[in-house]
């Protein structure tokens, strides 16, 4: 493949935006904000990915899915790199990603809470509960309560809506 025929990085970003997250397939890896960089080094494509949670079991699957998708588009020389810093934050989830999560029944993280220090403020207060109101993704009511800090995956917490009585997952802010 000659240098002139290399696809642009914009094209590669476009392909990656079609790769679903393995655990929440309604959003893509780019919606999630974990693809940090796409660049050519000579004729080798270098894709830099950051993990969501350090122990997230989906990380290996995500790397395989990225590799598969890019191979399907004819990329032959490919290197995946892990970048830890700056650490992933839910603030990087795209607005479209938030809408897709809500439509899927998962309350999206409140935008900006990781950056503005509300997460740390809550931990520093230790007792007294959450300083965030999480609206129900089904009926929109703000009358909700936390059932557990952890849900079906490390990135989610379990909540209950006291208006429509439905339990729901909340994608917690980190």
């Amino acid at each position, binding site marked *: 493949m000659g240098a002139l025929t290399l696809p642009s990085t914009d094209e590669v970003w476009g392909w990656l935006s079609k790769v679903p997250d393995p655990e929440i397939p309604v959003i893509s890896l780019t919606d999630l904000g974990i693809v940090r960089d796409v660049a050519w080094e000579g004729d080798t494509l270098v894709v830099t990915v950051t993990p969501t949670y*350090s122990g997230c*079991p989906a990380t290996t699957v995500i790397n395989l899915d990225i590799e598969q998708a890019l191979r399907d588009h004819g990329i032959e020389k490919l290197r995946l790199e892990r970048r*830890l810093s700056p*650490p992933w934050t839910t603030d990087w989830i795209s607005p479209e990603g938030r809408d897709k999560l809500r439509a899927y029944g998962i309350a999206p993280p409140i935008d900006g809470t*990781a950056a503005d220090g509300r997460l740390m403020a809550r*931990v520093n207060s230790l*007792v007294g509960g959450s300083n965030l109101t999480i609206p129900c993704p089904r009926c929109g009511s703000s009358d909700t309560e936390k059932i557990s800090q952890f849900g079906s995956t*490390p990135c989610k917490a379990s909540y209950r809506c006291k208006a429509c009585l439905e339990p729901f997952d909340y994608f917690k802010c980190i």
Partner: protein
Amino acid sequence: MAALADTAAGRAALLEFLLRTGDNTLILGHRVSEWCGHSPVLEEDIALANTALDLIGQTQLWLGLAGEVEGQGRTADNLAYLRDAAEFRNVLLVERPNGDFGQTLMRQFLFDAWHFELLKALQGSTDPRVAEIAAKAIKEVSYHLERSADLVVRLGDGTAESHRRMQNALDELWSYTGELFVGDDADEALADAGVAPSPASLKPAWDAAVARVLGEATLAIPSSGYVHKGGKRGVHTEHLGYILAEMQFLQRAYPGATW
């Protein structure tokens, strides 16, 4: 100032610190994972398993860096699965048996409150590799601490039975907390180089957080100042051997097995 890792003694101190940090998360992560499928309620089962998962994930980062610093080609897996008890550097607190749910939660809270302060300080480490792992881990640990503090209050200030169990757990575990704050030459070298805080420097903030939560939980802090220690230099209780027997069996019996 020369970087700590430029000298053999400095590298040895850094390696010691990384093993201590990674072994704490590894052994506690393994202990907590023993609850999987056995917790009193489904939500707590999931919470414990996810906490264990975070801790094991952090272990991969700490022990991965330990292998890199050691420079002998050992991976995080090699370090986790192929060392014997005397080479483990975790504090004795994390190898304490799970006991009942109250003991497990109290151990988690006492550890989380310390872990949070440690990571907070490590974010400013002069070693950028240490600082970036800490910045990643503290996000996860802030949720661990919020959960364990909340449950200690709810169960401590709960029914007579839950209060009794939480007080018993505190009485049983208290003498294992002192080791978190005891330093040695390696700790001093790291503190001088700005790589890690001196263990004693974390105590005032830990004391304050623990006093506040235990007070809210109506639990009495034991008056005994006795400190069980040894884990940080490889002298462990018999419990660690049983943990390793289970955790390491597969790699010992089938070296290099993957799935």
